[in-house]
């Protein structure tokens, strides 16, 4: 279970450039929940995932995962619990190293790294099996540099790497946004199948309304560093892309109104 409690973060605090991507976010994700996060550009979705993964420390609030208070854990320590796929396909793989070597790194996520050989036969056998299950023909290219693959192939492999050892939490940050539509579809199908089959606790950011509506069992909408909507269960199942657009439109209209003016109007007309 992931428990985010009143988490806040400011960049460049106290300067004219101050940004506050997280302004008291609280969110509890039970085990095996597949939660989707949406929101306009710059509303703090990536920052939320970064706060959980430990890319930076939060200014306020706490983060608990799997029974541990990880608020002050450095990123590499949290990685023992967290699997991650980034938006940019270049971020998740070591380009000059082979596919097999990249996996040999992922296999030891959260384990010690000593002087044993990184590639051994039993790993290669299992790797061939698992990569073959992607149906991308990559099992014949395990000794090729992973940098020579397409973005879609790299994201599929990164997903496999992130989940090779079952993570307590899987973080996906618009991991298909940089792909062409066909590859994006493929990676999304793969993602959904994997998460369902393994019952992975997942927090996934997406910009694509169809994905937001059709995937997952819960949907969270962020706006200006806050969570403004949170639907799950039957309500989530009934959701249509149009509903989400309406919600965005509501937010935009509210924006136009200064809170004090809104209060006056409300007093006058309601």
């Amino acid at each position, binding site marked *: 279970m992931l428990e985010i409690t009143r988490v806040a973060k400011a960049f460049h605090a106290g300067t004219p450039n101050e940004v506050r991507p997280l302004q008291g976010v609280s969110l509890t994700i039970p085990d095996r929940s597949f939660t989707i996060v949406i929101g306009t550009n710059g509303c703090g979705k990536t920052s939320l995932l970064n706060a959980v*993964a430990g890319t930076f420390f939060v200014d306020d609030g706490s983060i608990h995962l799997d029974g541990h208070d990880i608020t002050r854990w*450095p*990123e*590499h*320590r949290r*990685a*023992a619990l*967290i699997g*991650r796929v*980034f938006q940019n396909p*270049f*971020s*998740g*793989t*070591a*380009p*000059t*190293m082979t596919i097999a*070597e*990249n996996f*040999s*790194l*992922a296999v*030891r*996520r*959260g*384990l010690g*790294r*000593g*002087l*044993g*050989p*990184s*590639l051994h036969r039993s790993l290669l056998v299992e790797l061939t099996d698992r990569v073959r299950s992607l149906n991308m023909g990559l099992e014949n290219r395990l000794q090729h*540099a992973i940098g020579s693959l397409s973005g879609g192939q790299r994201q599929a492999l990164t997903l496999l*790497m992130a989940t090779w050892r079952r993570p307590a939490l899987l973080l996906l940050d618009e991991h298909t946004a940089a792909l062409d539509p066909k590859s994006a579809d493929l990676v999304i199908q793969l993602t959904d199948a994997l998460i369902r089959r393994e019952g992975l606790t997942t927090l996934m950011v997406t910009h694509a309304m169809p994905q937001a509506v059709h995937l997952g069992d819960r949907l969270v909408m962020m706006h200006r560093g806050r969570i403004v909507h949170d639907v799950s269960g039957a309500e989530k199942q009934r959701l249509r892309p149009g509903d989400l657009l309406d919600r965005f439109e509501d937010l935009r209209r509210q924006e136009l109104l200064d809170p004090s003016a809104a209060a006056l109007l409300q007093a006058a007309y309601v």
Partner: protein
Amino acid sequence: MTLVIGAWTMGIILALLAIGVYVSFRICDFSDITTDGSFTLGAAVVATLLVTGVSPLAATGASFLAGAFAGCLTGILHMRCKIHGLLAGILVMTALYSVNLHVMGKSNVPLLSTDTLGTYAEKIGVQLAGGQPSLHVWGWEVATKEVAALGAVIGLVLVIAAVLYWFLHTNLGTALRATGDNPQMIRALGVNVGTMMTMGLALANGLVALSGALLAQYQGFADVQMGIGMIVLGLASVIIGEALVGTKQVGLAIAGAVMGALLFRLMVGLALRWGLNPNDLKFMTAFFVFLALILPGWVTKVWKTRSAESLHA
């Protein structure tokens, strides 16, 4: 012939430097100026210990450790104290200048009357040669001592290259390579990037110091100036090596660094024979590295504009 053997011996000793620079520059993706200081440090430590009667093997080992320690410092300044990488190297290199003077006690320590690794090699060599002080190689008469020194450094570099190759394929070594390739990714896989970089720089500078220690023993003195420009020399070797083997694959890249060092030595020898003023050597080396760094990007750019133009035509 003695001259040729001497040039090869120097080349092989500097190949060790090239391997060290390969580790920092390519594996860790870090331009490490500490190299200039740790090369001299290796020479200073070995010379001082030899003069005080420590066995050559222990003294040479100590110089590796001293260099590794200097590399650790640069790694900590950069990763822990968040000082820019180049500046971290400059700070440690500058500090090492004083350290080296203190270690040696003066600016030059001669090693002519002390036992060195070369003495060991000579003893073994003379034994193997059946007690003859000189050998005939393709009709040339050469001192057994020279051949033994060459054989010893070749053996040493082979062993070190093999150990490095093995290490870079262990779980730890693979993580080190990934650190230079994509720190964001390896952090997300649970590796402490700061520790990895520090370890990589320690290894790199240990090898560089070892190279300095061997050079001091071979040429018979340690000098506080001997490290100047070594980083550029190492870079030149690594870059030539990459051009020779044309791949980033670890085993070939290590072999490439060794060959690059030898080839560069050869080029320098030829240039000097053709009348290059020795004072211009460092300038030419720097200029060469400049060209090697700039040319590939420039060629691709020209090539891209060409192909773009031909598309529009």
